[in-house]
């Protein structure tokens, strides 16, 4: 990116000197998503790379070019969605003493603030369990942190950025999601930050493929549910997403986007629905008076949706055999609520559960139709609606399996909602 270089010239100080001396093979460059075993070794052993650092001065020239393209710290990727802001932060762990010394105070303070806390302000949260350690990115080794906060707290975030003189670092802030467009001027006016805006679906796919590639050792990024139609034996199992194409990628955020992905660069948005995570939370707030996703999920876990929904058996006394509909299937979501007596007899928990089931099943149903229309058998569900939401994941796994008679497989990824932000970070490090 042109303006990276430009910034560096302005800066005049090469604060990021040391790493440029590292000889780096092309394979370690971000953007090469299929990490070779060799790279993993170097990625997981930060120290060994620093040893190699001085051993080969003939690589100096190439290292210079890496250095030229490598942006200055801090490295952030941001995804500003309708409900949540997702932030990934790369914390370099291979900082040399020389570097440490030269590191400007502002940068240091940001690094310390982010890495020494797990909660920020009232609503910011670092998902510690998702942290990726000893990751090699752009020739630097460090940890990738995953942070989120509600989009409506973005002003507070900007205020913090202003207080911490973020703009003095002259970093490029790569951001995706609708908020990158909507709040671009706020970033400029409130925090003196220039956003580099990126397409959310491009970032999403890039992020998914990257995270999956770096996670091939350790806990599997991708997993599925075995025996989804048998609640007693339904267990989470790791899944290797090698040779992933074609795949249907269903991103459930506030709304839902469904993408058919044929290769890293070849994908299309098949359709989407406005009945997504935002609908679940929005309806739950109206119906139960709750105010957070966690609250809503907690209630849902304790409720019983069959008191709210009208099932096939409520109408036909059992299965509707003429059409092969099982008695337990929902005939009408919230259908029992047409009756005054039943409205008065349900609990908030029941309503929360019914809302969750309704939204989840609907996503499952649309996804299944898209998979059939696109002739794709593998479906990967991502997005923050699935965060700590095993209920929905199991429902989706069940729905995919049952209605497709085992043809469709529902897959899930551990880093659920962070892929867009990861994709944005990758764009910063290795512009496509």
């Amino acid at each position, binding site marked *: 990116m042109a303006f990276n270089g430009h910034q560096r010239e302005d800066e005049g100080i090469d604060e990021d000197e040391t790493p440029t001396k590292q000889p780096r093979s092309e394979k370690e460059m971000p953007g090469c998503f299929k990490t070779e075993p060799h790279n993993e070794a170097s990625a997981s052993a930060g120290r060994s790379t620093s040893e190699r650092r001085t051993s080969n001065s003939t690589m100096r020239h190439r290292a210079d070019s890496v250095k030229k393209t490598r942006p200055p710290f801090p490295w952030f990727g941001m995804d500003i969605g309708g409900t949540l802001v997702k932030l990934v932060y790369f914390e370099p762990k291979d900082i040399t003493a020389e570097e440490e010394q030269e590191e400007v105070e502002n940068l240091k303070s940001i690094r310390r603030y982010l890495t020494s806390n797990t909660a920020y302000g009232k609503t910011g949260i670092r998902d510690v369990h998702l942290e990726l350690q000893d990751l090699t990115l752009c020739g630097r080794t460090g940890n990738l942190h995953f942070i989120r906060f509600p989009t409506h707290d973005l002003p507070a975030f900007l205020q913090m950025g202003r207080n911490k003189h973020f703009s003095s670092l002259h970093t490029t802030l790569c951001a995706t999601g609708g908020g990158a467009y909507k709040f671009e001027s706020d970033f400029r006016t409130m925090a003196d930050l220039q956003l580099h805006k990126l397409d959310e679906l491009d970032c999403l796919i890039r992020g998914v493929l990257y995270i999956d590639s770096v996670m091939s050792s350790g806990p599997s990024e991708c997993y599925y549910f075995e025996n989804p139609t048998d609640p007693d034996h339904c267990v989470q199992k790791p899944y290797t997403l090698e040779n992933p194409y074609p795949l249907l990628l269903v991103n459930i955020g*506030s709304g839902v986007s469904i993408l058919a992905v044929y290769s890293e660069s070849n994908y299309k948005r098949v359709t989407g629905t406005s009945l997504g995570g935002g609908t679940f939370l929005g309806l739950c707030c109206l119906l139960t008076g709750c105010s957070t996703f966690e609250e809503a999920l907690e209630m849902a876990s304790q409720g019983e949706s069959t008191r709210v929904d009208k099932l096939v058996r409520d109408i036909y006394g059992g299965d509707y055999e003429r059409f092969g509909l099982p008695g337990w299937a929902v005939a009408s979501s919230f259908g029992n609520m*047409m009756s005054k007596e039943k*409205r008065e007899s349900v609990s908030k928990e029941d309503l929360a559960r019914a809302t969750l089931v309704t939204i989840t099943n609907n996503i499952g149903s649309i996804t299944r139709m898209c998979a059939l229309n696109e002739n794709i058998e593998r479906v990967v569900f991502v997005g923050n609606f699935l965060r700590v939401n095993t209920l929905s994941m199991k429902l989706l796994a069940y729905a995919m399996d049952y209605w497709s008679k085992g043809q469709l497989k529902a897959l899930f990824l551990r880093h659920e909602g962070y892929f867009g932000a990861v994709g944005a970070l990758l764009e910063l490090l290795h512009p496509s």
Partner: protein
Amino acid sequence: MAEFVRLDSSTSRHTMDKSITLPPDEIFRNLENAKRFAIDIGGSLTKLAYYSTVQHKVAKVRSFDKATKEAASDKLYEISVQEEVTARLHFIKFENAYIETCLDFIKDHLVNTETKVIKATGGGAHKFKELIERKLGLKVDKEDEMTCLIKGCNFVLRNIPHEAFVYAKHADSEFRFQTTQPDIFPYLLVNIGSGVSIVKVESEDKFERIGGSSIGGGTFWGLGALLTKTKRFDELLQLASKGQHTSVDMLVKDIYGGSYGSLGLTGDLIASSFGKSATADKEFSKEDMAKSLLHMISNDIGQLACLYAKLHNLSRVYFGGFFIRGHPVTMHTITYSINFFTKGEVQALFLRHEGYLGAIGAFLKGAEEDNPNQYSWGENYAGSSGLMSVSPDMNPMQRARSGTFDMLEMDRLERQLVNLPLLQDPSSYIPDTMDLTEDALAREYWLYCFEEALDGVVKRAVASQPDMPEAAERAEKFRQKYRHKLQTLRHQPFAYGSLTVRSLLDTREHCLNEFNFPDPYSKIKQNENDIALKYYQKAVKSLEELSWEERQFALVRGVLAGNVFDWGAKAVSDVLESDPEFGFEQAKRQLEERPWLVDSYDQWLERLRGPPHKCALFFVDNSGVDIILGVIPFVRELLSRGTEVVLASNSGPALNDVTNGELQILTERIAAMDPVIQAGLREDRLTLVQSGSSSPCLDLSRLDKVLAQVVRERQTDLVIIEGMGRAIHTNYYAMLSCESLKMAVIKNSWLADRLGGKLFSVVFKYEVPAGKPSQGSAAVTPS
């Protein structure tokens, strides 16, 4: 899915003492002869169906016996009015609250005791089972709801032209009616009851539920009741129509600040339904929440419907169920959703008689032994109440009241009706030239015109039955009924499908029949036929004296002049009534000189110089001078050229149009004086068939099956359509796969003006289908 039956004890008590607003005998008509009942009890409405027979008068003509002929007057034939029994289907829709009252009424008037069983369907059938069995003494026999629905749907799609429509909220006319497809299959039926069922229908007996959704009408109602504390479905819709969803929904622009350009998602698109209500500290209005909910559900159903349509490669998607049922709000949101998701490739179709489908289907299930599907049925405009106003601004309570009793009556037609095999593209054929539903100026004129003509029609109706003292009273009832229909149509032009001159004429015929005026013109026709016949030989002789070329022109002028004699057109009936001497010759002088308004006479003459046609199908118009002095000589010339002729005339009376019965007698008489006609009949080169219609207009997609067969057998290569009703009001733009000739004189100054001509302008439209050389028929030479 079954509809939900809402029977709050409070409301049923409250509504029980409501009295029926219309006299019940005007609702449950012909109950005395009723047999076979079916009932469909839904969430709020009950639909009752029964089969009955109607005795009504028909006019018959009969040749006098040779023996008695001398004794009788010098009349050509005898007119008699006979009683005829025809089958009629009655469908009545009313609120569930009236069930008991209605059952009592039926019980009291049910004379026929042979009926033992009542077919029942709908979610409420089992709730009322006991009541029905007790009140009527009939055994309730439950039928599968979906099967009934599909059967009913097939029936209305096949038998009611303009059954399906596209809804366009902001268009000049909200409803755009679809032409009847020759093949109604395959189609997708999306039934939105409490849940959604998506059914693929491939043939009369083959259908499959390919999918569905639990997010349906019950979700709107149930969730809506929770969110807004509003109990009634109608009220929820009313709330929704007043709300602003943007305060509740998270739009693309709420996330992006504008549109999401690279995906072509506009800023106003909903990104997340209820996305803005994810907060504890904000209040939302009932209206806004209801609107948001309506959008959410409609969009979701629309999206699923599109996905299923795409997967099964279907382009015809009909929507029904209580969620839709004539509610403009839901029709609009569903239409919007379908347009959005298919980018206009699939249109959401709705049905005028959607509410009756279950009842019709249940009835058909019970009547299978009568094989009702082997007949064609026609909507009786006189007995049907038509589509109610669905103006979105109307109060739901008002709507409920005005729609308290809805009726649909279908007459069994004597003949099975099919497409003319010579239509170029049956699926795009539209009989009517002008759609008065869309053309407000034309609508105003024609409604006025028919209202103006009403006095004359009443007068003539009374005059046609001089021996019946109560004729005046009946005629008055006819006047009221038809005037009421005209008034209804003024406010709801779409009540019976697209409003056209044809439908106005047909409605008038139905109303006349309703009050036992089967043929008000019978005497006039008889007189005219008598007089014209006297001039026949003279006319033929003078034509024979002309040179070939002069004769061809004289024959065409003869047909056109004859066509001026038309009691149906106001301008002419005035002249005829004030000046009975108005003669054939005068009529010729009245004709426009060439070049005519539409004039392809030169091409026609050129064609005549070539080899003869194999067979001509001639749709004739009026009695008297028209048929006898205009058409028959023309036909005679065709026969002489070696062309076979099929004369198609109306099966039943309409205005002064010659009926098949009359034409039979007339041709016999002419044959007696004219060897050419006689030879034609004897050698079977001149054939008379009935069109299957009793309308002054012509719908080429609903013709007698026999006619279609004859046309095919004879390898018809020329279709001649005569008269304003058949060639201008209808079929002016009809494209045929063979040569066609449309001849008419414009006898209405408004229409003449519209077409850029003047009164008595001539339309002579000879057309050869593209790709066919005009003499392509030369393959067959006369034997």
